[in-house]
């Protein structure tokens, strides 16, 4: 009881601002006379959210699968490449220029190619999301694995520990907070990738819903889709934040890079 009270009091500024903005928005539309196709009122957005004619759950499911797939591919590929780079100087020299090149490509511009190669569907959209999100993971993994006190590595040498053991016992745990903070960025870029893919070509998903409203001028539905997109993104981000707290409780209090 006391705790929930304190929670409410702590959130009071946020909640009040939210309510004020909502009221101002509603008034601007219903009293100020802004036309609904430019800015739908909160009431009509809410109506669109609960509109039974739009199969929201199916669209949300498709987009969510794309986002999670993009996130997982980016995480696995990023950690793998980052580990390779940290493991061997030669691999690092061979790989880095390519990775930097891929990263400088505007991924949005590559999206149409993916669709030519793979056709419509969930997979190309996943890959676009993964491509946008994997680079920070590569870099942070490599940095986390190599940014270690020289004295600590000397300790490994004194006990003639094999390279893999130093990796497992020292380097990899050291990299956890680095990797997790990159994954927070990836969680956001996976959303961007999935939506961009759906913009380019698709018949399902929340990005498709937004594109479709362009011709029908049904702006309220576009707003509702935006609401769902940010909710899915928020959940993904929340999962990573939770993982961070579970996996690296020792790195709390701003110790995260």
């Amino acid at each position: 009881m006391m705790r929930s009270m304190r929670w409410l009091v702590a959130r009071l500024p946020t909640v009040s601002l939210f309510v004020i903005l909502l009221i101002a928005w509603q008034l601007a539309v219903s009293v100020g006379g802004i036309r609904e196709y430019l800015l739908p009122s909160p009431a009509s957005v809410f109506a669109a959210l609960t509109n039974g004619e739009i199969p929201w759950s199916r669209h949300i499911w498709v987009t969510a699968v794309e986002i999670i797939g993009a996130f997982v591919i980016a995480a696995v590929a990023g950690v793998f490449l980052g580990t390779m780079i940290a493991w061997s100087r030669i691999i690092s020299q061979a790989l880095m220029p390519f990775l930097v090149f891929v990263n400088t490509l505007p991924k949005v511009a590559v999206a149409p190619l993916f669709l030519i190669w793979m056709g419509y569907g969930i997979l190309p959209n996943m890959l676009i999301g993964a491509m946008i999100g994997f680079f920070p993971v590569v870099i942070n993994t490599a940095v986390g694995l190599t940014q270690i006190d020289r004295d600590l590595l000397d300790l490994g040498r004194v006990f003639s520990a094999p390279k893999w053991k130093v990796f497992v016992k020292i380097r990899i745990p050291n990299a956890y907070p680095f990797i997790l903070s990159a994954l927070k960025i990836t969680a956001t870029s996976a959303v961007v990738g999935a939506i961009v893919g759906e913009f380019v070509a698709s018949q399902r998903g929340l990005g498709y819903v937004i594109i479709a409203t362009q011709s029908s001028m049904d702006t309220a539905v576009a707003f509702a889709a935006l609401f769902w997109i940010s909710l899915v993104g928020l959940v993904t981000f929340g999962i990573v934040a939770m993982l961070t707290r579970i996996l690296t409780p020792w790195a709390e209090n701003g110790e995260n890079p």
Partner: protein
Amino acid sequence: MNDEVIQLDRVGMIYQAASGPVEALSDISLNVRRGEFIALVGPSGCGKSTLLRIVAGLRPATRGSVKVNGAEVTKPIAAVGMVFQAAVLLRWRTILDNVLLPAELAGLDPRKYRERAFELLRLTGLEDFANKRPNELSGGMQQRASLCRALLLDPPLLLMDEPFGALDAMTRDDMNLELLRVWGESSAQRKTILFVTHSIPEAVFMADRVVVMSARPGRIAEIKPIDLPRPRTVQVRATARAGELSLDIFEKLTGRRS
């Protein structure tokens, strides 16, 4: 049996910097007997830390010969405990698991060393902190844990690189006494210690001999035997003789008569 644990014969070290070769150490000759406590003092950049790493086999000397226990050092030597200026504990591990790290790195079964680890933690007053993480400990306590880690495998040789340099003066005084106690001042099986420090009084208080170094290139300016009685207590530190020895070393280091 050879009683000279460390034999340095005209050791030199030149490294390549961006501006050309730099002579870090020159003509270092020093023999250290078993159970001896040697302190290295000198200005920053006199290569005393480098010398420590050369003895450990972590950096190669470019000239002269380095022997530990009669064998030429060509790679990192086993059976050595190292304590650095920072505690460098793994922050995701508990204190106990940090102390057990050397056993794991050396490929030994850490479970067999738990007893020993607890004994060391008890000896340094950390037994209540065995399951805490490093960030829950003060700097002095972290450095104690780092000392326990160095002692886990009971190495006959301890190399300490300004181990108490980052601590405040009072903690440092405590740690000095504690190290002497752990070292076993009066025991016959005490370890050989090579101890790098910036503090002349600390060197005088702890060591059997103080090696005074000068910088650029790092050379031995003087080797000063410390004839203070053991066990060294706070009273010993306050004697006129201790002050005299410190003053001598200070004059040698700065080239000033005071």
